[in-house]
């Protein structure tokens, strides 16, 4: 605590209080949207138009600009969920609990996108919609983990209890993800067909890499935007009896 400047500590303390956080998000939202639009615009322009076609895969590889960032996001969001869940469990910070559960549907969406685009990419490359490829399989299991979190949260009526349950489950999941990942990878090397290598490690040119990184960054900003939207409704619903929500409601009329 001594190493952290006082101003930073004060900032986090204020952010942990719901009305302050709500007001703060109102202020930053336009900026987040601007950055997101710019990043996505440049990323897509670079990826779909400027970057050359792949010498092996032709233009079909352009799915990479959403497939790979989505796959990254699916793992990243699970980490965020587990970490904020742990913070919520240990320090009883309401906002951390809400971040954890609000992340789950967004993470599940990215996992779904990674699977769906992976399948669409696989069709022209492998000739079939689904291959039990290591990465696709772990992604599928990750989707089940997300659905478990969402399902558990929905099944428990008391939302404070439910967020605790979600935090425990997310932590258990986070310990298991590497184990699942490596076991699936190991399993895959034993059963792998010869066609799969075609998609492995396309020697990526710099003009292909830059749009990929831009898209990865843009997805991070999208996550922030979507997360804030979900946090807001969750905050309003949980604090519906608090004075600040009541005044907010009055302002809306």
């Amino acid at each position, binding site marked *: 605590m001594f190493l952290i400047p006082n101003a930073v500590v004060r900032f986090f303390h204020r952010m942990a209080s719901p009305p302050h956080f709500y007001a703060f998000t109102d202020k930053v939202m336009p900026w987040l949207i601007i950055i997101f639009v710019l990043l996505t615009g440049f990323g897509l322009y670079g990826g779909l138009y400027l970057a050359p076609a792949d010498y092996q895969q032709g233009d079909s590889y352009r799915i990479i600009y959403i497939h790979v960032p989505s796959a990254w996001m699916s793992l990243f969001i699970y980490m965020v969920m587990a970490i904020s869940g742990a913070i919520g469990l240990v320090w009883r910070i309401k906002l951390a609990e809400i971040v954890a559960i609000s992340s789950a549907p967004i993470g599940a969406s990215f996992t779904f996108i990674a699977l769906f685009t992976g399948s669409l990419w696989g069709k022209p490359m492998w000739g079939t919609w689904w291959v039990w490829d290591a990465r696709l399989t772990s992604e599928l299991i990750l989707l*089940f983990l997300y659905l478990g979190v969402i399902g558990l949260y929905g099944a428990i009526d008391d939302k404070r209890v439910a967020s605790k*349950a979600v935090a425990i489950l997310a932590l258990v999941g986070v310990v298991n993800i590497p184990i699942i990942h490596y076991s699936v990878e*190991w399993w895959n090397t034993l059963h792998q067909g010869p066609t799969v290598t075609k998609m492995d490690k396309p020697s990526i040119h710099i003009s292909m890499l830059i749009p990929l990184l831009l898209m990865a960054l843009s997805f991070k900003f999208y996550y922030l935007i979507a997360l804030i939207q979900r946090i807001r409704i969750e905050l309003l619903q949980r604090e519906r009896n608090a004075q600040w929500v009541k005044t907010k409601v009055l302002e809306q009329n």
Partner: protein
Amino acid sequence: MSLFYAFLAIIKRDLLLAVRRRTEIANPLLFFILVITLFPLGIGAQPHLLQAIAPGIIWVSALLAAMLSLDSLFRSDFDDGSLEQILLSPYPTSILVLAKIIAHWLVTGLPLLIVAPLLAVFLGMPTQSLGVLLLTLLLGTPVLSLIGAIGVALTVGLRRGGMILSLLVLPLYVPVLIFAGNAVEMAGSGLPVDAQINILISMLCLSLVLAPWPTAAALKMSVN
């Protein structure tokens, strides 16, 4: 010392209860046998085909049997208030929970080992893989009980926890299934399986140490 005494008392109590109830032992076992008999009926009784997929069938059935038996782990204690009493004990809940899991495994997991050779013969599995099958079951089913305990602890307070339990638990069972199934398959073709067995051992150690904590935390949350 008194913690050890409490640990033993819980195991003894749960074993005694299982003996008095009986169906608790029989149900997962019958389920295990039934599911395995369904496979030849469903996919045809060609000996080659059955032999090839026997390790997978046995392990998937064991997985499902383990999952179905999970509900009885905390259900009756939750319903009659004994769970509250266990949580209020001054001893660490995770240790007491571990005792319950061990007793539960003795009652529901161990019997699977006894019938597994019989079923392996049903499916025409080569005899040299029988030993490995038993070894993987011995190492793998406790892991299933330990991981499953986290899932039941999270859902025991819910009126309809069954469906959600399988969603929570089955994805976490994947590594055990992969390594155990593969070890049996490899043993069938006479290949060494040391690596798989070592991994299963480390999974067992890891889950023995780690799983009781979230289980205890989840139980505290469930009784709220």
